[in-house]
């Protein structure tokens, strides 16, 4: 037994070293950083210990802009993508021919490089002196005005970002929901059919309650994912997100750490901890809510 014991730890050593150096130590260190006021990475000096870093970022207009952008992105993309993926997954599970083909196609955005395909979206939406871009042509067709979605007004930029985020997150949601729908016990449907229940009632009374745990799971992961939104924004608007007024909380963390305004890990840590607090709060609220409304 004792011999076995020592051997087991031997197998865990490689994983343990990686975790200790790159996850556990950093986890403690981030709180240390967040308390070291205005710690400068280049000069390795700080002004003292305290909560100044938090107050600094909460008064930083760039941070407030980032919070606003992120919150808007969350509020817009999570409901739309959830409802849309429900519709599509429901459609998928009600057909037989071509189902595999559709599933394959719908999953494609998952395996693409966000930065690379973001460039395609940028070109579709961008207005340059040479061309108005695809999307503007579509707007012209409906007699709309041309809008520069990439360098133009705030709402237009936000719209493009949300569209791209939804395009990226849909494959995951469709996949999860389709499999949840497939696992609903067929007997419920047969019973409903015997009772002569109508289609819409079946959906509301049987399907939705049966897959509600999955839907809640998707909402939680959707919230967390959208709060961590970053590389999609870089793909569309370039690395200088502050200048484009399209920065996100995660983007703010990285800019503080490294980049034009970088070299301040203490501010970055404070922002990261606030982000973590937000995510944790939402998860807890969601869990409390779901316990009351999910039919397991």
């Amino acid at each position: 037994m004792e011999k076995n014991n020592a051997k087991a730890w031997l197998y865990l050593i490689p994983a343990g070293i990686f975790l200790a150096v790159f996850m556990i130590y950093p986890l403690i260190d981030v709180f240390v950083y967040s308390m070291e006021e205005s710690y400068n990475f280049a000069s390795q000096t700080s002004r003292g210990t305290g909560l100044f870093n938090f107050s600094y970022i909460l008064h930083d207009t760039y941070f407030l802009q980032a919070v606003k952008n992120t919150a808007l992105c969350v509020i817009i993309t999570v409901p739309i993508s959830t409802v849309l993926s429900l519709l599509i997954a429901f459609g998928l599970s009600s057909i037989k021919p071509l189902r595999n083909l559709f599933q394959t196609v719908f999953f494609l955005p998952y395996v693409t490089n966000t930065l690379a395909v973001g460039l395609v979206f940028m070109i579709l939406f961008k207005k340059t002196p040479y061309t108005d871009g695809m999307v503007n042509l579509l707007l012209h067709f409906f007699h709309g005005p041309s809008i520069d979605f990439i360098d133009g007004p705030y709402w237009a930029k936000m719209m493009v970002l949300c569209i791209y985020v939804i395009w990226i997150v849909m494959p995951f949601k469709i996949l999860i929901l389709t499999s949840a729908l497939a696992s609903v016990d067929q007997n419920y449907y047969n019973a409903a059919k015997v009772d002569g229940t109508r289609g819409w009632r079946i959906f509301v009374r049987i399907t939705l309650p049966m897959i509600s745990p999955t839907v809640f799971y998707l909402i939680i992961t959707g919230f967390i994912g959208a709060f961590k939104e970053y590389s999609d924004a870089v793909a569309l608007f370039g690395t200088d997100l502050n200048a484009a007024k399209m920065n996100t909380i995660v983007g703010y963390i990285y800019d503080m750490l490294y980049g034009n305004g970088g070299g301040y890990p203490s501010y970055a840590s404070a922002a990261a901890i606030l982000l973590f607090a937000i995510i944790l709060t939402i998860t807890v609220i969601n869990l409390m809510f779901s316990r009351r409304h999910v039919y397991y």
Partner: protein
Amino acid sequence: MKKRTAAKVITYILLILWALIVLFPFYWMILTSLKSYSAYNSEYVPTFFTLHPTLENYVNAFTQVPLGRYLFNTLIFTVITTVVMTIVAVLAAFAFARLKFRGKNIVFGLFLSLMMLPNELVVITNFATITNAGLRNSFPGLILPSVMSVFYVYLLKENFEMVPDNLYLASKVDGTSDLKYLLRVLVPICRPTIITIIILKVIECWNSYVWPRLITDDPDYYLVSNGIQELRENGFGRENIPAMMAAVVVISVPLIVLFLMFRNKIMEGVLRGGTKG
């Protein structure tokens, strides 16, 4: 009955519409990459097809900017990270699944709780660690913090536990060592799961952007994500969109091919708990 047909038609229209939305960007990038520079810039209204496809953009993508270098870097990064991750994860999963040791449940519980940690919390110190170790702009600096994936250890452990105990006991009777049992019996039996985590890790590595961006500012060490961002900001000259699209196609193709080859494995792996990393 008529109502049912109508519902079917509406369903198909909805699905086809979404398929078009998904496919259109791919179509557009391939189409644009085949248009010549002058043809593209003379189209105020972009055309939906081209009668004179050209491969000059692909030549430009490899000759005017170091796209080949970016691809090569990404390949090295992906292969080494994935190989090291697989070895580390298999060993750890074996310890959790098969061996009995005191405090196993506590260690595993702590281990699982690490899965909840957002990457943003630990990246700050990792940045400092790697910078202070002088590993900026190097492969070890890129690879080391990217290796560990708690989730894959969990997935493997679950799979290892499904293998009947009898096999382990039999091998013990035969005097086989634990390591030999792991390599000769467990790994071959659990090959499907191991392949799944390898593919998921490859996708993650190929698309990783944030860490490489933080830790490299020398284009010699750029991965494809950083390379494409660099191309966009100072590559071909800002307006050479067709060449940029050729680079985008080159970067996207390997993963799409991988997906079409291992479609079921990838979808099953994602279903079992992967999120977009």
